[in-house]
């Protein structure tokens, strides 16, 4: 029934009061997800939100869907169980840079390589929010935090590179300050069949305020960022006058007209990985959008396909067959 009526974003709000700090980037992300769910018209009862622990991981409580607030770092594993058990559910993983990349890094990379059909949103605020401000695996080297009073000595992950290195079939990045872009990216993730890894730059106003400001500030962002559009030339700048061109194993800045087109659907993850290298170069714009999107069989499909094949071949098993095998003997 509920599938028939057209749901609105607000129908995906639970009755729980949201407990994020005023101004937290998380608000914009939840709004984006609610809007996208309404847009794609999925029934609320078929959506499961699975999270770990962190500010971001409180997300499921605020959603009028099924929800599982797990333990720290284990959201991907729990979600894998949900999805493989019941592939009819649409399963989202909500995680943070600490939850999903620090303690949960292993489940993250394994669920990506297995291509479990999960929509994974990584709230990257480059800090541990919930525990009140320690550096995370995405914090830049040198960041002073409560546990790095003289500056962090850890080199950070680039989440996109890690996802690509894990074999992820869908890799994207967006920002909390750009709701429209975020919705586009989330919609693409929802439409992707397979693991969809979406990094969202999210501002923590309390413990790491402004860490992304070079790329979010209205005054600078157009020159500092580039929004990749599938099949479109890679152009950017306030006047869309600049572009990127493939140059050997690298990219260079060219006038817009000479820009190469961006294709996230090529089988090789090489181009996407080269694209993420821009992050290391202050002279280059930061790319956002869909870096990679290729269709491969998902774990949940393969598991059930195999069950189907074996069952067709051997016939559905009855408990009796399992116990009473050819090795039995009878005593009268």
């Amino acid at each position: 029934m509920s599938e028939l009526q057209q749901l609105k974003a607000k129908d995906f709000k639970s009755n729980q009061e949201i407990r994020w700090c005023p101004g937290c980037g998380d608000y914009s992300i939840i709004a984006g997800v609610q809007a996208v769910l309404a847009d794609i018209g999925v029934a609320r009862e078929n959506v499961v939100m699975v999270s770990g622990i962190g500010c971001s991981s409180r997300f499921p409580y605020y959603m009028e869907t099924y929800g599982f607030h797990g333990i720290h770092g284990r959201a991907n594993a729990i979600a894998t169980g949900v999805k493989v058990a019941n592939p009819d559910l649409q399963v989202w993983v909500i995680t943070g840079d600490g939850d999903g990349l620090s303690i949960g890094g292993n489940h993250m990379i394994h669920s990506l390589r297995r291509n479990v059909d999960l929509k994974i949103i990584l709230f990257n605020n480059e800090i541990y929010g919930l525990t009140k401000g320690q550096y995370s695996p995405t914090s830049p080297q040198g960041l002073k935090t409560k546990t790095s009073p003289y500056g962090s000595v850890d080199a950070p992950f680039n989440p996109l590179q890690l996802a690509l290195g894990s074999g992820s079939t869908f890799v994207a990045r967006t920002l909390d300050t750009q709701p429209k872009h975020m919705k586009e990216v989330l919609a693409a993730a929802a439409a992707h069949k397979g693991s969809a890894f979406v990094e969202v730059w999210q501002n923590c106003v309390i413990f790491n305020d402004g860490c992304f400001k070079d790329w979010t500030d209205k005054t600078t962002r157009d020159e500092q960022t580039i929004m990749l559009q599938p099949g479109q030339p890679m152009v950017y700048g306030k006047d869309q006058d600049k572009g990127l061109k493939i140059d050997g194993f690298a990219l260079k800045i060219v006038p817009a007209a000479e820009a190469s087109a961006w294709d996230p659907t090529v089988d090789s993850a090489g181009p996407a990985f080269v694209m993420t290298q821009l992050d290391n170069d202050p002279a280059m714009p930061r790319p956002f959008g869909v870096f990679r999107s290729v269709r491969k069989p998902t774990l949940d499909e393969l598991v059930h396909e195999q069950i189907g094949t074996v069952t067709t071949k051997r016939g559905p098993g009855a408990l009796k067959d399992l116990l009473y095998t050819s090795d039995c003997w009878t005593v009268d």
Partner: protein
Amino acid sequence: MSSDTSEIIRQDDVTIRFAGDSGDGMQLTGTQFTDTTALVGNDLATFPDFPAEIRAPAGTRAGVSGFQIHFSSADIYTPGDAPDVLVAMNPAALIINYKDLKPGGIVLVNTGSFTEKDLERADCKTNPLTDGSLSGFRVIQEDINQRTIEALAGSPLGKKDVLRCKNFFTLGMMYWLFSRPIEPTLEWLEEKFGKKPDLFDANTRALKAGYNHGELLRLFQGRYEVPKVDNVEPGTYRNINGNQAVALGLVAGAELAGLKAFLGSYPITPATDILQYMSVMKNHGVITCQMEDEIAGICTAIGASFAGHLGMTNTSGPGLALKTEAMGLAVITELPLVIVNVQRGGPSTGLPTKVEQADLLQCIFGRNGEAPIPVISCSSPADAFECAVEACRIAVEYMTPVILLSDNYIANGAEPWKLPAIEDLPRFEVKFVTDPEGYTPYTRDAKLARAWAKPGTPDLMHRIGGLEKDARTGNVSYDPDNHQIMCETRLAKVMGIRDSIPTPTYYGPDAPDLLVVSWGSTYGATRSAVEALQKEGRRIGRLHMRHMYPLPYGLPEIFASARRIVLPEMNFGQLARLLTSEYPQFKFEQHYKVKGKPFFAPELKAHFRTILEEMA
């Protein structure tokens, strides 16, 4: 076969140990002997003794692989203690095993593998065949290699493959010696090698030659007959090991609950087989996920239970340690989950291929916060099936994780199992909530089990998780009183399981001098030892525990009847500690063995006898 004129020696109870190099096929020889022995109607129990995990260089002591079978014309409960017969295929096998033999026991030695080089590989300074080591045993020396080559003269197989058949030659000799038919093995060979006629032919010839060799050459002083058990309960039987039984029990349990089984796992000795067995059962709708680690194993299982399957996970000690945090999550989310722990020697990696039962207190108490989980322990391979079903029952009836304890000895030991009639199995069908009227995630039934609504059900959307929840609404709650109520309720629910479990049966005289309490795989040796003493007229009784937590009702009454109580355990007295903490009015004496080896009935018997004599 050829008619036989050897003297027949009737014996009611025999233990044979086959021992050879890992490459000698001793496990196969043992299994064939077992299957045939089951068919002739003996009771039996077997235990393989694998070498440590990594294949050692051929011929070395570390590379010895053994298989012990105990069979009898009466009911038996262990794979035997000191063997009557040792088959030793090389010096290493001989050296490692001969000391276990019964005085006067038979040693059959393959002299074909006793060259200088063989002795050197086995690190033998002198030849045990000639240095007096074997005095006191009846040694039968035979160049089995040569006999096999002779028997297979003309076979198209190469020499190496011919020599591979020596285990069937040996098996033939043992069949003759113990008056077993060779036909079941012939059938098996046909099935196995039907499409490889050369191999079929070679092994068949080796088997028959071995049999005839026994008969013709009079190597043995006579031939043994172990009559079948005559009062066997009628029914259908099959040999089963503990891991198989657990796998079957879990799948049966899920089916009896009306659910699909989902096993989230990570390989670890000696629990891996359960995953292996279950991964074959795809046509039963069983989902197995081999995950990246034990944490992911249990977490997928929790996710699957949330989605409405029966989540399960299996592991051994170090893996259980890793699951600790997630077990707490299963407790607080009150989802059904079966956690199988096949214990091995610890601490840490310890002795991974050996037996121990030192995880009991970890299972009961090893979690942060007040996180009660029921614990069940199986006592033998056949018992493991029932225990696994029981674990599933408790998990779904009480919406709780359950730990099922097994150990390496049960996991790899085998015995005949009387199959239950499918229709006799208990049913405990789950009814998912579908009606939104009055639903909250913590609506409870009479057993205090919370309502289970699965994703996909309209209008029952809800959120659960690791933070404490309000008892009424299911929302996150930091309320102090609510927390205490929830903790008390979770405990009361688990304690309530006592209403659904029986008091263990006491076997023995009224008011015994000595009561022996056993659990897990100490069952067999304890039972054998106690029954032997009972036959001697001793006032000794026994009690075997299946439900370790919560403890069943009725125990104090039994304990009170005994003058002394002793607990043999393969740990430093963990059950003794638990019972003391619950029933401090009784004195529980621990008797431990932490050697990576099971108790043997004679050592227990001796220990119990000493106690009884002290009391006399």
